[in-house]
């Protein structure tokens, strides 16, 4: 038995049909608000609050916005203020249990990265309040042409961070109890038979998108490619739209703006997702732009994923969800950039040897 199967087989598990699983979602809804993937348009998916468990999508490649939208909302009022009397109040963030259902392992891994970013140095109360009582039910997935999480060390069946985990088996699922919180939820649900003792045997999943090197070697590659020509190659076709930043599950940069009501008295200080790929991101008061070129911006984006924060947090800050590649209107793929950098790195190493 391989190490992954060994780990999975240690958890208590139940066999559950899809029909019962949807009843389980209904049961969870009685405990707390449940958020899960839904269809969004013709071929997109998004996390939404579950109204009807029949609408929850269990098999999906990826949602458009990552799960971070529930912890760092795309638009968030930080303060309500009054201009005339110089007073303000911070909107109350209700610290409540929320259940996130049918979440993929890379998404869970991205929250671990966001946890780091919002708690190292200053601990941000807004993020922590939303995150504190969150419960996660994971589910495995079939990698599409853009997923590459295996290349950054995250298995499809990685259970870390989840309270419960779903593995498809036959015409139903195994429901695995990962934490005590998960166990309590299962215990309260009357629809399950006794724990199942069949052995789990996962099939190794084929990722179509791969990074050539083991992920442990990537920070070393990034030590040598700062001046690579690869950045110019991608800058030539990149249009700087910022989609890769905005949909990235570990990006957390933001802008803060004051917005005033029509009475010219009340208003809000609001934060919005922002991105280092956008032209004006590194502009200063005098108008100087410290990362004006698309090549420099692309480089900064990738260094944030594979080196800068990684060196401090000991975690790659790319989780292989493939959103940047999949949603890029130009078709730039993250794995292509990294593999080109690796080729460049190898050429450099070979030259040095000669």
């Amino acid at each position, binding site marked *: 038995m391989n190490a992954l199967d060994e780990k999975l087989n240690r958890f208590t598990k139940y066999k559950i049909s899809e029909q019962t699983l949807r009843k389980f979602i209904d049961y969870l809804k009685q405990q707390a608000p449940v958020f899960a993937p839904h269809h969004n348009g013709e071929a997109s998916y998004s996390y939404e609050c579950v109204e009807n468990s029949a609408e929850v999508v269990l098999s999906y490649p990826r949602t458009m916005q990552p799960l971070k939208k529930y912890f760092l909302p795309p638009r968030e009022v930080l303060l309500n203020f009054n201009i005339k009397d*110089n007073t303000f109040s911070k909107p109350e963030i209700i610290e409540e249990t929320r259940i996130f259902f049918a979440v993929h392992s890379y998404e869970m891994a991205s929250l671990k990265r966001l946890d780091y970013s919002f708690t190292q140095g200053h601990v941000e109360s807004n993020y922590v309040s939303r995150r504190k009582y969150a419960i996660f039910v994971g589910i495995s997935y079939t990698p599409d042409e853009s997923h590459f999480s295996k290349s950054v060390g995250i298995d499809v069946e990685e259970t870390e961070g989840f309270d419960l985990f779903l593995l498809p088996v036959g015409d139903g699922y195994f429901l695995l109890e990962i934490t005590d919180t998960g166990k309590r939820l299962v215990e309260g649900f009357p629809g399950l038979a006794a724990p199942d003792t069949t052995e789990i045997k996962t099939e190794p999943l084929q990722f179509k998108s791969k990074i050539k090197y083991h992920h442990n070697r990537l920070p070393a590659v990034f030590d040598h490619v700062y001046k690579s020509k690869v950045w110019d190659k991608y800058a030539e076709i990149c249009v700087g739209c910022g989609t890769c930043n905005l949909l990235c599950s570990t990006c957390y940069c933001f802008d803060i703006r004051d917005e005033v009501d029509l009475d010219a008295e009340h*208003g809000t200080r609001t934060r919005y997702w922002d991105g280092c790929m956008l032209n004006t991101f*590194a502009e*200063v008061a005098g108008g100087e732009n410290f990362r004006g070129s698309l090549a420099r911006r692309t480089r900064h984006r990738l260094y944030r994923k594979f080196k800068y924060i990684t060196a401090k947090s000991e975690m790659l800050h790319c989780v292989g969800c493939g959103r940047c590649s999949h949603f890029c209107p130009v078709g730039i793929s993250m794995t292509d950039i990294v593999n080109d950098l690796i080729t460049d790195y190898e050429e450099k190493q070979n030259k040095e040897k000669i």
Partner: protein
Amino acid sequence: MENLAQHAEDLYCPEIATITRVETLTASEKRFEITMPGNRPLNHKPGQFVEVSIFGFGEAPISICSSPTRGPSFDLTVRATGRLTDKMHLLEAGSQIGIRGPFGNGFDPQDFKGRDMLFICGGIGLAPLKSLIDYTLDRRNDFGRIIILYGTKNPAEILFPEEIEKWQQQTDIEFVMTVDQADEQWQGHVGVITTLIPPLELDVKNTIATVVGPPVMYKFVLMSLKGKRIPDENIYLSLERRMKCGVGKCGHCQINDTYVCQDGPVYHYPHVKQLEEAV
């Protein structure tokens, strides 16, 4: 997460402070004296900054230009150049203003004890350095020579004329200034600030050089200091970026792997020397 929650801070809530004095310095710069609620001291280090906010007009990072050795109030020198700073220039003494901070890495003047201090200030760069200059003047016996080089575009842009007059008269300060373009009354040096460096006679090993100025200035000043054989580890810079949040989250001020609002704005030169986007 729950144990971290105990340390969670409301990072974006300002304190409402009061502007207790306003002084017009130049056509586009004013000095504001700010008093925190209850007249409490800000407890800042020279070189640190605060996020100033006016509701409806947003926030902007502003360097503190007074030394913590002087009273509980503190001074900000503000150039009217944006949404917040334009509005701030319209405020009078008695107005309220939001303050967050102090933030960032400042100077540790104790580390410079016994050393000769060389201040190189370009334009509004004098403002952040003034907090350290005043500190060294208030603890004059702790330091060796105090040399201040100050350059502006033209005589009309000279900040702090009163202080400068005092510095010029004080025998224990070596103050030299230059303007890029003279007017009819100007009788001093004309030329960029780097022209003031070669004539200096310095005990280079014992000299601490601190440099603050517009982005374009650093490269040339650093070359001149190198020409003087001042070791890199004796050089400190303060860098300007768009520090939106002040607490190392928003990403706007990031230079390579360093957040200016956390690791800077004051940097030991060897730390940023290799960073292409820094200077």
